[in-house]
């Protein structure tokens, strides 16, 4: 059962076969999606009509490639904008939350900690509709009272960002607290002892120590934001992030340009994931 115990060969090979099968299962759909990105057909499905780069670089209707498709490019931009703010907010609040829960004792701490975990057990769609309902009510009341418009409280990017932030902040908090937990407080005391101020000690010692976790949380936040669908769907306005745009396209009939986008996404997020993994590596080695 572990490396040091003798195992029968049948067992060993069955186990390996199972694991291999598992990874095949994981890889299959993605491989298929990626392959179809090169299918020379306007339909993203079999039969195979030959190889083409058109879904990346094509500019002739209907063979419009990713790089010439304004709305896809725009929604990628939107997604990046959303992801940027979501991850910024999440790591900011995640960091303060981590300090709050790791460093401080206060009344009902346990209770507040469970509240902090709540977004993990609230389905995303419900987060979406509750925020929608709430902001809608607030906006209606404000508009009735002031006669002004509060577009920021209506579905649109601000709400999308807040909606995603509402649960990604919990993940960021968990990742960052885990590392802060491992932080040896005597390092901070040593810095004080050597003449640093309180904030100086946090800035020079604690934050650098937390950096791998903060960066990791940032990457996770970006990935989660990019791929989020359920919450976003309820809060999106005129600027659709990529997943929503792709969903709309799929509903109306799409070309393999979506496969091409997916392929690009896979490549980019794999790279991002690798980067975050490297951060974790470095963090372990230090």
């Amino acid at each position, binding site marked *: 059962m572990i490396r040091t115990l003798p195992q029968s060969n049948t067992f060993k090979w069955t186990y390996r076969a199972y694991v291999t099968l598992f990874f095949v299962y994981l890889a299959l759909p993605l491989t298929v999606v990626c392959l179809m990105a090169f299918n020379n057909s306007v339909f993203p499905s079999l039969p195979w009509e030959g190889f083409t780069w058109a879904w990346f670089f094509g500019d002739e209707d209907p063979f419009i490639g990713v790089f010439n498709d304004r709305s896809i490019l725009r929604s990628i931009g939107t997604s990046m904008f959303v992801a940027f703010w979501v991850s910024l907010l999440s790591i900011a609040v995640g960091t303060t939350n981590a300090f709050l829960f790791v460093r401080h004792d206060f009344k009902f701490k346990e209770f507040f900690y469970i509240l902090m975990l709540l977004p993990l057990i609230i389905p995303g769609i419900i987060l979406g509709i509750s925020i929608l309902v709430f902001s809608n009510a607030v906006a209606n009341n404000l508009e009735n009272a002031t006669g002004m418009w509060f577009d920021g409280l209506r579905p649109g990017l601000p709400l999308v960002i807040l909606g995603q932030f509402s649960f990604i902040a919990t993940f960021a908090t968990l990742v960052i607290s885990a590392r802060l937990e491992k932080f*040896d407080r*005597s*390092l901070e*005391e*040593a*810095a*004080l*002892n*050597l*003449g*640093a*101020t309180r904030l*100086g000690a946090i800035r*020079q*010692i604690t934050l*650098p*120590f937390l950096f791998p976790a903060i960066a990791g949380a940032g990457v996770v936040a970006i990935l989660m934001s990019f791929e989020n669908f359920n919450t976003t769907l309820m809060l999106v306005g005129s600027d659709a992030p990529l997943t929503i745009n792709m969903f709309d396209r799929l509903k109306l009939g799409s070309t393999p340009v979506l496969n091409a986008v997916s392929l690009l996404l896979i490549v980019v997020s794999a790279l991002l994931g690798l980067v975050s993994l490297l951060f974790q590596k470095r963090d372990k*080695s*230090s």
Partner: protein
Amino acid sequence: MSQQPASAQNTNAAAAFDLECRNINKDFDGFKAVNNVSFNVPTGTFFSILGPSGCGKTTLLRMVAGFQTPSSGDLLIKGKSMLGVPPNKRPVSMVFQHLALFPMMDIAANVGFGLRQRGVPREDIAKRVETVLERVGLPGVGSRHISQLSGGQKQRVAIARCMVLEPDVLLLDEPLGALDLKLREHMKIELKKLQSEFGTTFVYITHDQSEALVMSDQIAVMNHGEFEQVGAARELYHEPKTAFVAGFVGEANSFTAKVDSINGDAATLVSDDGLNIKGHDASGNLQQGDKAKVYVRPESIRLATSANQLDNVENLNQGIIENILFNGANSHILLREEKSGGELNVAIPQTGQFRDLTRGDKVYIGWEAAQTRCYKES
């Protein structure tokens, strides 16, 4: 940089002591972690605080460093009260139990950290860092990473990081605790040497008596938040003032006994097992009928194969060897005293005289009343 001149002035005025504690107390929600402790540490000495786990050593040290505020009492460094001075403004440095070297910086940056906080110019820092690293015997390691050093080297870097600031007092909280046995033996001697080289006052806390005994000029033995005895190593070892010190510092056979008669310092007692003991009243207040704790060091008990070899000793008994704990120069015999059935730990002399004793042998044992220290049991 800023506090150096201020404290220097004070030195001339008042203080022969680098550190003075006056009736320091520390309460944690009604629990007295440090109880009315006073002591003075003369300039340039190695002062140890020795005590079992949980006795309040760290709490005391952290009050000196400024991480904790005394509930009452005063605390002076070079004659200047430190109450209300935040830790980053005190002229003390601290070596932490796990050293607390900054893992995100290389060694030079670690050692230079304090100087950077003081705004010392960059080139100066580099120079002073290199100098202090040379002094601790690690020239040229500045650009290495912490993880590339051995345990003993890290220790020295931690000390260098403090010493570069030229503190009035260096505090050390069990800095050898995390090292392995052989390295610990070695670092004991090393630390002592570094201290005498720098000439800085060290306040060292430990629960390992051999560390305290080997290194210190003065040792304070602490128990339950209080100082039991302060003195040089030999004083504590040979003339412990309290039962706790007698039992905690060095090995000892201990008995609980009842005072049978008392004559000046000379006491006659009967142990709970029924052993007759002649001892020396170390607490100075024993009275007939008192319960007492009696301590005899293993090396004070002499072995003999016949009774007449032990003529001049007041306590003479016989025992059967139960176990020989051979440990080179530091071997012991565990034997069972015949009359009382109690177990005794006897050191085997290094002379090799009793090398061929074996289990089951019957031997005579004797020890002098003067080396049998009795303390009234409270």
